[in-house]
C-alpha cells in the first residue's frame, strides 16, 4: 500500500470514527428519553451499552486516524470525484421521490442511464436503450410474472 492510500484510509477511519461518536450521542439521548419498566433490564439498557461502545470505538478510530495524519501534507480527495459521488446520491434521492409518480420502468431506466453515465459509459444513446430494456424486463418478470406489485405511472408501467 502506498503512503497516499494509507493517508486516505486514515482519513476515512477518522471520519467514520467521528460519525460514530456523533451517533453515540444521539443513541444515548434517545435511550435517556425512554420510560423505565419494572423489568430487571429495561428498554434503555441495550441502547446505553451500544451508545457507550459506539463512542469508545469511534473515539479510538479518530485517535488512530488523527495520529497518522499529524504530519500535514498530501492532497485531499479529488473534488471532481466528490462531485460525481454527490451527483450519484442526488440521482438516488430523485429516483426515490419520482418512483411513485412516474412508475417503475421510467424511473429505473433513468436511474440506470444516469448511473452508467456517471460511472463513465461512453455512448449516452446506447445506455438509455440498455436502461429501458433492463427496466422493462425487470418489470415484466417481477410485477407480471412473480406478482410483486411495483409502482406504475399514469401510463400503467
Amino acid at each position, binding site marked *: 500500500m502506498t503512503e497516499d492510500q494509507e493517508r486516505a484510509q486514515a482519513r476515512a477511519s477518522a471520519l467514520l470514527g467521528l460519525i460514530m461518536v456523533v451517533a453515540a450521542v444521539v*443513541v444515548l439521548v*434517545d435511550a435517556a428519553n425512554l420510560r423505565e419498566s419494572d423489568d430487571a433490564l*429495561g428498554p434503555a439498557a441495550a441502547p446505553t451499552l451500544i451508545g457507550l461502545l459506539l463512542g469508545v470505538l469511534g473515539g479510538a478510530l479518530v485517535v488512530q486516524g488523527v495520529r497518522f495524519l499529524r504530519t500535514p501534507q498530501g492532497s485531499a480527495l479529488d473534488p471532481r470525484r466528490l462531485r460525481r459521488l454527490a451527483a*450519484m446520491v442526488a440521482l438516488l434521492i430523485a429516483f426515490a421521490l419520482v418512483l411513485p409518480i412516474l412508475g417503475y420502468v421510467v424511473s429505473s431506466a433513468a436511474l440506470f442511464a444516469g448511473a452508467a453515465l456517471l460511472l463513465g*459509459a461512453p455512448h449516452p444513446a446506447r445506455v438509455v436503450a*440498455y436502461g429501458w430494456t433492463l427496466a422493462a424486463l425487470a418489470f415484466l418478470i417481477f410485477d407480471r410474472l412473480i406478482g410483486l406489485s411495483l409502482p406504475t405511472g399514469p401510463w400503467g408501467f
Partner: protein
Amino acid sequence: MDQLLTGFADALTPANLLWALVGVTIGTAVGVLPGIGPALTVALLLPITFRLEPAGALIMFAGIYYGGMYGGSTTSILLNTPGESASVATALEGNKMARSGRAAAALATAAIGSFVAGTIGTIALTVAAPLVADIAIGFGPPEYVALMAVAFVTVSALLGPSLLKGAASLVIGATLGLVGIDTLTGQSRLAFGVPSLLDGIDVVIVVVALFALGETFAHLVAGTGASRVEPLRGAAVLSRDDFRRSWPAWLRGTAIGFPIGSLPAGGADVPTFLSYGLEKRLSKHRHEFGHGAIEGVAGPESANNAAAAGVLVPLLTIGLPTSATAAVILTAFQSYGLQPGPQLFTESGDLVWALIASLYIGNVLLLVLNLPLVRVWARLLTIPAYGIYAGVLLFACLGTYAAGGTTADLMILTVLGLVGLLMRRADVPVAPAVVGLILAPLFEQQLRRALALSEGDWSVLVSTPLTVILWIVVVLALIAPGIFALYRRRRGEPAPAEREHAGDPR
C-alpha cells in the same frame, strides 16, 4: 434417513427441480459478476422467491446460495476481484494460474473441489444437524446469551484486519438493529417518528446498501480502472497430474472447512486461509506457490464450500447466523414464516429435509452446469464495469422496494450506502455489521428473558457448565491475540506478515 428420502421425494418433483435449476443458474450468473459475493447475490435475488410456496422458495434459494458460491470462484480466478473475503485465498493462486494460461485447469479444480466439498459438507450437515438440534433443544436463555457472546467476539476478531475495526463494524450493525419498537415495552427506539423505521431496518436493505451501494460508490470515487480478464483457452478439464495433485487438497480443505464453519464462531474466512497455509506446507511443489499452484486453488475453494455447508449447522439448529450470508438466509427463512432453531426440525421437518435434499441436487446441477458452461459465465465478465454497477444499482433499488415498499426505505438505502463507502475506504469490514444487526437484538431479547426468569439475578448467566465454558472461550478469544504478540516479541520474532487483502474483498 427416511426423512432425507422423503426430502428427496419432495425436491425431485418436476416443478421443484425446475426451481432448483433456475436458482443455480441465476445464482451463478449473478455471483459471477465482479464485486458481488454470495451474501449480496442471495440478498439481491431474495425478492424472486417471495411469491413461491415455501418449499419451492427454499429449494430455489438453496440453489441461489450454492450458485453464488460457485460463481464467485470463477470471478476470483479470472478477474482477481474476490466478491467476499472467503474467496481471497482462492484468488491468490487461481489468478496466477489464469495469468500463466492455466485458467481452464484452475476453474476445473475449483468446480470439482466445490462439488466434492459441497457434497461431503452436505452429508456432514445431514448427520450433524439433527444431533445438534437435539442438544440445542435443552438450551435456555443463558446458553443462548453465552453462544452469542462467543459469536460477537470471534466475528469481530476474525472478519477484519484488527479487533478495533471488526468491533466498530459490529457495533454499527448493532446500532441499526436497535431501530424500531422494543418488543417488551412497546416503546419506539431511534425511530424519530418515521413510520418505516418503526418496524426496524430490513436486513436486506442493510446488506444491499453496505455491499452493493458501498461497492458502486467506491468505484465512482476511485475512478473505474479497467480490470484485466484473463483469457480462457480449452475445455475445463483436469489433466491426470492436476487431478493427482488436487484430490488430496479437496479432501483436506473439506476436513478443515466443515468443522470450523459449523462452530458458532466467525464464518468461512478462517478455514480458507488455514487450508492455503496447510497446502503450502505440505506441497511437493512449494516453489510453485505464488506463481499458480493448483493445490492452492483446490484446498481453499473446497474449504470455502465445506464451510458454507457448515455454517448452516448453527443457523438451522440454533438460529445463530455467523456470516453475512447466513444472516440473509435467516431473514429469508423468516419471510417464508419459518424460525430457525431447535424446533425447526420437529415443527417444519418436511421443509428442512427438502431443503437439505435440494442442496445435494443443487451441487450436482452446478457441476453439470459449470464445467461445460464456464465459457458462458466467463463472457459475463466482459460486460463493462459501468453496465454492471448501473445494473446492480437498479436491482439494489428493486430489492429494497420489495423489502420495504416506501420512498423512505430508498432514502435509508442511500444513507447506509454512504456509510458502506466510508467503511470500505477505512478498511473496516462490512460482514460483522450484518451479523451484529441480526444478533444484537436476539442477544438483548435472550438476556432480558434470562434475567426475567432469574428475577434479576445475573449469576444465572453462568449457571450451567456449558455457559461457564463458553464465557471462558469469550475471554480467551479477547486476550489471545495480545498474548501471542507478547510471546513473539519476547522471542524476538517478527510479527507474521499481514493477511494479504487482494483487491478489495469486502
